[in-house]
């Protein structure tokens, strides 16, 4: 009572994030190749393609260092947190992403639009993706009000939400969990680790891309994805 109402009305009312937050990049296609190459040179994730001037958001950790090159001449990160996509290729972007709601599979909306139960599997996630997914259950975001819940048993789940670069040591447990979910089921890759291996790409101890194991239906980029990015992706993809 004393603390007052601390919940949010998202998505009915928009939420503005602090301007230092790094969301969807705005890429200047006219930027000289030299500057783009400087950006690519410092990118720890090798996410920038200078030939076609794109950034792969499936690899990007949104560290924002490319933004500092020549005062953002090649790229600036906006506060737009709507980053989820239904296709891996859409994440390789020159600054715009397809509207997720229009690209989601319509039968999923019919099946899961009113009730969606997910089993979260951390497969070598560093705990920031996990923590910012957990946060959706706090009063501010209150995920349950949308009929979406994270459940304990894969038998009760409609799909799995995977974080982490999938260590070889978690591969079996991940597959067992996936197999235990009854069909039809969905697969969500959350965070750049499960999409591309993230900071750990190239390690011989990880699988990296979740698509190498099971077909992914929804990609949520970020390091970690902001809770609102996850919320937006879940609502757009599953809600009518």
């Amino acid at each position: 009572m004393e603390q007052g109402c601390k919940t949010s009305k998202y998505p009915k009312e928009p939420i503005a994030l602090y301007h230092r937050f790094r969301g969807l990049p705005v890429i200047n296609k006219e930027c000289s190749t030299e500057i783009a190459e400087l950006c690519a040179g410092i990118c720890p994730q090798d996410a920038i393609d200078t030939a076609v001037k794109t950034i792969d958001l499936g690899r990007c950790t949104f560290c924002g260092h490319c933004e500092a090159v020549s005062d953002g001449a090649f790229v600036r990160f906006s506060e737009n947190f709507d980053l989820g996509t239904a296709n891996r290729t859409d994440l390789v972007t020159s600054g715009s992403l397809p509207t997720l709601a229009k690209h989601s599979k319509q039968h999923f909306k019919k099946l899961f639009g009113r009730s969606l139960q997910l089993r979260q599997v951390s497969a070598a996630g560093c705990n920031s993706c996990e923590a910012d997914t957990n946060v959706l259950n706090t009063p501010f975001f209150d995920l349950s009000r949308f009929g979406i819940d994270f459940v304990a048993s894969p038998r009760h789940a409609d799909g799995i939400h995977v974080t982490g670069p999938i260590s070889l040591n978690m591969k079996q447990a991940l597959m067992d969990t996936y197999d235990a979910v009854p069909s039809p089921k969905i697969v969500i890759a959350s965070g750049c680790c499960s999409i591309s291996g993230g900071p750990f790409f190239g390690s011989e101890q990880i699988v990296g891309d979740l698509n190498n194991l099971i077909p992914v239906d929804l990609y949520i980029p970020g390091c970690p994805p902001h809770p609102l990015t996850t919320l937006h992706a879940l609502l757009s993809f599953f809600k009518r």
Partner: protein
Amino acid sequence: MDNLLKIENGKAIARASIPQVAYEQFFKTLSEFVKNEGFIVQFFAYKDEGNYKLLAVVRNNELYVIGTQVGKSFMSLTRNSSEKFHMFEREIAEQYGIKPDGHPWLKMVRYHENYTGEKDVFGNDYAKEIPGNYPYFSVEGEAIHEVAVGPVHAGIIEPGHFRFQCAGEEVLHLEIQLGYQHRGIEKMLPTLPHKRFPTICESIAGDTTIGHSLCMCQAFEALAGLSIDDGASIVRTIALELERICNHIGDLGALSGDVAFNPPAAYFGRIRGEFLNLLQVLGGNRFGKGLVRPGGISHIMGEEQRRLIRDKLAEATPEIEHVCDLLFSAHTVQARFEHTGTVEHNMAKDLGLVGYAGRACNISYDARVTFPTECYAELPANSNLVTNGDVNSRAAVRREEIMHSLRLISLLLDKHEKLEGTTTAVYMQDHNLSPASFVVTINEGWRGEVSHCVLSDEKGKVQRYKIKDPSFHNWTGLAMSLRNQEISDFPLCNKSFNLSYCGFDL
């Protein structure tokens, strides 16, 4: 003691100056050292010119280093000297295929092939999926039963395996087997360009992003001779304290949830978010990723950010005090917290517990005081009043540390406001590291002592990168806290420690 070289936190030294002694001498020196309030910071193997070498960094009130050369095996210090070596020796066996002879529980740590191609010490075939070939500690008897939990747990948390040996509801022994999160970080780092180091180190354990990136950056700064300005140092210190507050508040909330006292769980859950958002105000990321880089910080704190942090502290401090009162004064909570999961002081010392887990057992060690980095030398220290080693003590220590950190941030903001001169933002670049050098860095992350070691080769390339998360010491503490407890106390004990799976697994 004569064989140990005194070193300083975050100061690079020539590798040639590290005392190299015969193994018998090494064994004797370390055995004596750990008997007298001596603890291990790092103990690891590396390969040098075709030979296997061991290196130990140890501490009492000072920091020391010592090295030796071994063949394919060495006499176990765990068996003959102290439990403090237990996990370190298992790690050496797993990473380098060198056997600590006589180790009482020689079992894999993370389950991966060794780096050297030596015959596997554990007889595992790594083409097979985990769990591989290893035994569990077992208790036998008519009324004994075994409970296996994980790797996939019921909540949104990281994976690990817990094996309880129980008589009825009573836990006789808990064995914790991790490794599921292993990403091969230490092996991959020396092969990578410098620009990838910070992003990887930020993700060693995402909840300790600042702690680990400080260790990495200070190591590079020492080896590359970089200096950082006061403004950057203040922001780094604030970030580390914000990280501490976020996690402690989150854990107090989780502890309330575990004893089914829901109001503080909801309040703390919300308040934790406010502090994560302050890290976002500083550097654009709720965990502080992308903020700390060798040579300084990548985002300057200006008047606007200072004001936002100050305003939030003013608003949240009384709220936190109030919710803490609500939690700690509830009789039902006290009944569940007190005398649950007790680790006795002597046990904690034998195990070498660090951080709040250690402080709750009356081991006062705080790296911010003993080996201060950044601004800590001029900041007031904290002290703890409740140190009985139980869940209640671990919770009370968190509460005290939250209030202390809030005061520190306030002091740091004042200091920053008075600062003259400007801070320049830095971004990751390649650095020339001084050749044939060695550095160890230590910071008091929110869980306790985080430490990184770097050995550079003759050309200034990183030859060996060693990482230690405080969880490496403390998981054994959690296992011991469960002895003679009811199995239903596990969630509570676990949350009171809240250790890192990925920080341990690397």
